[in-house]
């Protein structure tokens, strides 16, 4: 069974000459099934860049990114889109859902784009919504959902079908603390059920739900520590 996410020697440089900015400088990171890894760091430390490269939204300047065993850094735009349909799900801070689609349609979106028949896609999406505890909101539009519900629907979409890797970029940033915690609890539960998660956050309370936390500074891993769900023995496996 391949590792959901394996990043090795990732660098990302923006611009050139005097305007050159090194967003990431040789990052190694692996996220296994059943593992939630938090990434923390100040603004500009490279957190979002790391996440975007992990999901094939951006390409590294150098290094390899293996998602479910395939090096997405070497894939073309079309194939990277296919990886996002089948292997990786994103959750952002807010405005995660396509306003014109209902909750279940939002969740079914990657499946439909991948050619799954509408009935099957909807069934999978409803199952995913049930997994996040929101089967009743299936036919509601995003504007009819609370912020927390929207984030839960986004998590459901991130893990619909056979997707096993969630990339969450400040998923609680726009939520109050109670709702934020419920969202993180859900993410944790989905990871415990067999998924893998990479969580970018500013908030140590939420990072504490992760199995381990990677601290970034100036594009480098400044340190790694465990969280509430961390098995300390596993710290040996941290790539830094």
């Amino acid at each position: 069974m391949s590792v959901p996410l394996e990043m090795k020697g990732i660098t990302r440089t923006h611009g050139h000459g005097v305007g050159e900015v090194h967003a990431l400088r040789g990052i190694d990171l692996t996220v296994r099934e059943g593992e939630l890894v938090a990434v923390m760091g100040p603004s500009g430390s490279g957190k979002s860049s790391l996440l975007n490269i992990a999901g094939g939204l951006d390409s590294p300047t150098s290094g390899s990114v293996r998602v479910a065993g395939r090096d997405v850094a070497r894939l073309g735009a079309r194939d990277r889109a296919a990886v996002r349909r089948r292997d990786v799900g994103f959750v952002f801070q807010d405005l995660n859902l396509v306003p014109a689609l209902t909750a279940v349609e939002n969740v079914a979106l990657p499946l439909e784009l991948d050619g799954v028949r509408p009935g099957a896609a909807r069934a999978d999406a409803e199952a995913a919504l049930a997994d996040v505890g929101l089967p009743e909101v299936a036919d509601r539009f995003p504007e009819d959902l609370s912020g927390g519900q929207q984030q839960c629907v986004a998590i459901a979409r991130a893990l619909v079908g056979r997707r096993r890797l969630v990339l969450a970029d400040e998923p609680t940033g726009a939520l109050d603390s109670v709702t934020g915690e419920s969202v993180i609890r859900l993410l944790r539960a989905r990871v415990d059920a067999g998924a893998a998660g990479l969580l970018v956050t500013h908030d140590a309370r939420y990072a504490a739900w992760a199995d381990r936390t990677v601290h970034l500074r100036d594009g480098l891993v400044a340190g790694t520590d465990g969280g509430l769900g961390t098995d300390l023995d596993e710290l040996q496996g941290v790539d830094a």
Partner: protein
Amino acid sequence: MSGHAPGGDRPAAGVRYRQTLGRWRLAFRLARRDLRRHTGRAVLLALMVALPVAAGSFLVTALESNERYAPAEVEAELGPGLQAKIEGIGGPVEQFWQPEDERWFWNPVGWNTYYEDDLVTTSYEELEQNIEGLLPDGDRLVRALKDQVRLEDGDDATMSVAVQTDFTEPDVAARIPVLEGRLPRTGEIAVTEHHRDLGFDLGDTVEVMLRDGTTTTATISGIAPRYISRISPVLLPEPGPLSPPEEVTSARFDFPLWYVTGHEPVTWSDVQNLNAVGAFVTSKDVLLDPPPSAEGSGLGYISWDSVAVILALIVVGLLEAIWLIGPAFAVGARRDTRSLALLAVNGASAPTLRAVMLARGLLTGAAGSVVGLGLGIAAAAVLVQAIPDRLPALRLPGASLVIVLLVGVLVAVASAWPPARRAARADVVTVLAGRRPVVTTSRRPTIVGAAAAVGGVVLAVVAGTQNWAVGLAAGIVIADLGLILACGGIVALLGRVAHRLPWTWRFALRDAARYRARTVPAIAAVLVAMAGASAALTYLDAEEVVMELPQYEPWASTGTVALSPGYGRVFSKDESERLQEIVDGALPDAGPVLPVPMALAPADAAGDAGTGSRQGLIDLFVRPVGAADSDDPLFADLGRWPGPVVTDGSDLDLLHALGIPEDHLDQVAEALADGRLPLPPSYVDKNGNARVSVRTVFSDASPRKEVVLPAVAVGGPEERLPNLPILPEALLDEIGAESATGAYLIENPAVPADEQVTLLQARADAALVGFDAARRLTVEVESGEHADSYVSNVMGPFATPWSGGAQPVMGLAIALAAVFLALVGTWSAVALSAVDARPDLATLAAVGAGPSARRRVVAAQAATISVIGSVLGLVVGTLIGVGWTLLTSLPLAVPWQQLAALAIAVPVLATVAAWTVTSTRVTPARRRPL
């Protein structure tokens, strides 16, 4: 789940199919929801599509509903009761509807109208029997015999077509409404208003002479309208003096006629059967409900030049629609950037993102087109109600309406394509971060566009000089597309140089540069409208100049009347005396009848007037001194005279009537008496000679002969004396010609009245031509300007007015249409930008910008779009107009004042209106992530 390996493996065909299906299903679902969620924007877009579709569908529906023959016209042609009228041609024909002329015509089938050997002849009786046999059961034929007759009543005499038929048949009688009196009975005739103008009035007793010389006396019992089926006939009762011909030959002018009475309609199928036996049918049933298959089949010739120009106009028109609609899609796409990025995050590939935008265009286009179609048809229905005479019933042209609908949808999709392409290429990470996607400023489109614009204009102008319409059309399209391609670069450039301007202009120019997706189509819409208007105005101005130029060269002194026997013919004997009597009666103030001798080739000059006389025409022209052979030769006008005028100069009256000015009269007469050609100075060399080229027209055996003849310079360098070259009689031998009377001139102190000319022609025809309708005299009157020209044919005299004076109205209409389109383009873009600029304006207000700031910004935006579009459009349009003008060989004339007015009016109107309607209130707006 998908049955394939993740990542780079190519999925199976079935999966690809399902992916494509899923992509479009999603695209349409999103588009549908988008239309519902953003009703205002969707309605605006749909309306923009609907308007051109409404115009198109209105046009095609109105045209379809426009009866070729409105019932009133059918009644004028056949009366209330006749089913048809039939003319016997003699050979099989195919009849067809000619839309340009709004008339039915026929073509021979299996025989030729051009060569006498190929003409066909049929027995009258046999033809009549054949026709009778093909009529629907219950219908009957009523003979109407036609021939030329001569009417005489004391001093008055005229030749006329006579129609002899049975007026006791109610349907036939009802077909000819008599204005005064009644239809003729035995011993009577009826005439038309035309005859009354010639002196034949109700109650007069007249002599009717037939072709064989038989004369009968009859009383005029009634006056019919001037024209009955385009002729002014004398009406004779049945039985009457005319007998049916033994044969019907296709060479005749007056084909035998029958009327069809009864209750059964003569259908198109009957008509085709009748055509096969040599009958041309005017059927009520077919007139009211013409078969589509009959249209235009008569002329198979297609002018590729016309097709190219029409295609160019259609392309430019569609581009205009696309540019007008485009900004609205662009703004919609930008507002949905975040949603599109989310789709990309969830695995939507670039084709999927494009599909989402295109589906939006497709749905909006379909909705707008359906609405437009409905509006167009409804408007046509209203028109049908308003003018039932012309549009008796609403008819829907199915195929044309479908095409209009599809074009509307295609225009919408094409308008959505640029934003769709941009959406598919947007950087997802940037968008998700809430930043504006980086606008790539490649110089290539600007360079390619500028090159294409210059190339297109050069092509259009060169094509104009080379008389190459396809090149002109291609040049128009290429220049148009090139400029539009370059627009983005121009806007970006202006954005960069805006830093020295006041802040409102800086804001407007940079806004235009930042949101090029919205600005460029709007500028393109203004540009295309202005280019079209300036090209049309330039061309129209050239046409108007032609009409206003003092280029009219009189061919005689004002008031002079010329009588000639038609193209290429001469009079067989001296008719001066007989004509003098007629002239004295018709033109009491006129001078003597002056025979005009013409130079003709000897073989035909002595022949009978007109018989084969085209062979006798002499084409004579004089070359200017020191110029190439093709440069401005002076030639005898064979269109008016059968040859160059020949005289010994002794008849000063003739020279005066020929329009030689008084101050040159003696000099010309002296030159002619000396055996020298009187010519303008540039045609006479220093030795007093002229290079003259002589050729017998239509004669292969007579090549062009170059001779040097003695000449005398007359008049100033810029002076054009009429009818030059006039040949001295003494030089006839030199060019191997003889003289014959080619025309008669009658000097009149003033331009004669129409009635006088009609009378003169009728009497002259009666006296000189007789029954040969093909040889009617041509009567021309020199009015000193472009005036009515009198022509004569079998239908009788009528006037064709000089069709000038429409240019100013057309020019104004074009200018107004251009201003309208330019303003719509500008304002729609400004309105859309106002939505985008709301947060910026709120920020400006927060930092202390006054209440008028919003107005100033909006006005500056309107000015930016309208000025750039107007200037570029006017420059390119004017150059294209120059090419167009050159193509049509008109003199170049640029309507600077009108173009300047447009250049000022559009930006001023756009700016002032934008300023006026803009609210000064600034609404606080949240900056939402992109």
